[in-house]
């Protein structure tokens, strides 16, 4: 697949200091299209879909909201906290609407691992299969997400 002019524009808006101070690409020098293709392949290799991952992220965020800002136990292994800071972010892909800086932190008691993601992450994974570039502090590794969040396949 070739990177389109539109994707060039999107990639430019993902650079440091355009929408956010650190941007969405980290130290990744690949073209956006290659980042998307590589993560898509990784997700498929793991037998998952972006929708299934994003759906689980949303499901846990909604369950965690019951904790009203503190960790709450969800199921047997997971602890979830949903907290927010002031500010809003637009989607770098140019989708309508803005996303509050709502952070969902999920701790897996079995694996003793933790991951934090935002509402914008859920949207970007669901709508674009974008997990941020390598080296970005906010990048979410698909394999880690699947492991920590205990994502099940679509079936």
């Amino acid at each position, binding site marked *: 697949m070739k990177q389109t002019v539109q994707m060039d524009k999107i990639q430019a808006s993902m650079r440091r200091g355009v929408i*956010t101070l650190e941007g969405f690409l980290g130290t990744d020098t690949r073209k956006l299209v290659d980042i998307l293709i590589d993560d898509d392949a990784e997700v498929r290799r793991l037998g998952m879909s972006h929708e299934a991952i994003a759906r689980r992220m949303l499901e846990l965020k909604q369950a965690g909201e019951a904790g*009203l800002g503190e960790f709450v136990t969800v199921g047997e292994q997971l602890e979830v906290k949903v907290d*927010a*800071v002031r*500010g*809003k972010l*637009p989607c770098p892909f140019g989708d309508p609407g*803005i996303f509050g800086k*709502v952070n969902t932190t999920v701790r897996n008691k079995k694996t003793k691992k933790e991951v934090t993601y935002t509402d914008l992450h859920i949207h970007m994974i669901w709508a674009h299969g974008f997990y941020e570039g390598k080296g970005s502090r906010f990048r979410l590794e698909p394999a880690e997400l699947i492991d920590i969040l205990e994502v099940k396949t679509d079936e």
Partner: protein
Amino acid sequence: MLNELFQAVGILSAISAVLSLLMVIADRTIANYGEVTITINDEKKLTVQGGSTLLSTLMSEEIFIPSACGGRGSCGFCKVRVLEGAGDTLPTELPHLSEEERRNSIRLSCQLKIKKDMKIEIPEELFNVKQFRGVVARIRDLTYDIKEITIRLLEPAEISFKAGQYVQLETPEYELADEPVYRAYSVSSAPSRKDLVELEIRRVPNGICTTYVHDYLKEGDAVTLNGPYGEFYLRDSTRRIVFIAGGSGNAPIKSILSDMAEKKIGRKALYFFGARTAKDLFLQEEMKAFEEQLSDFTYIPALSEPVEEDNWGGETGLITDVIDRRLDTGEETEAYLCGSPGMIAACIKVLTAKGIPEERIYYDKFA
């Protein structure tokens, strides 16, 4: 062949240099908008050099509009009403403006360049906002993820604010930030302590400012902040007060309680504070002390998932359940909430069901 290549590169470089020079000259001449006048609230007139954004121009005139993203057009905080002198709404503003805001000429001041005389409207209280330099007098751990930062003000040496308002703290350039960034934090100290500002800052995973505060900031460090901002303060009435908070949402409530104690405001008040386990509770003695200092105040901490070693004998359950149990009626009551959007929404549901009208529920929602 090689010579021709070098020649071509040389010519291209020369053309680029000339074009760059022309761009600089054009920027200084063609794009020179000269002096323009900004009329604020039909009263104050500023004569400024055109060409910069409205946000940065006002800041250079010491008028601070709240902004959390440093003028990138991503936080949507720096809204002002522009009555004259602005062109069409820019594509970068659109995601942040509702239909109604666009109809009311609301614009993002960080995106709007001043090219001609302009008439704007801003809230009067923003004239009280100043930039302060100070020094970190004390840092103490309130919990494993919340720190209390006490800043002694140097210049100006005093701040005037209403209990419940917030300031914007500057994070300077450091390992994770290649330029200064501002983030908003509620003041937890009493307004009577004009010489200092106390903040309660909870670590946000990967947060630029909270990482700086938790891992880099030391006692004795110089800091810059601006403020005060916000509409979250105690309304003047005789109604019973219900405060609800969790985590660092305690900060503005503590400031309001201190102010009430000093002013001997004797209104009946209840403070519901939600935490998960005992290790998430903090300033318990200070909060209990308000029960002595205020004539009719009750502090009600509640743990949602207490563990055995907590030996907890107090209220348990989600704070919304506790409010539902402990609040008899919402009659002649007003509520003050500080926390995440989810917590605010859940509490509003319970409070309105108790009979508190929504217009009497005041909140400091973080997003």
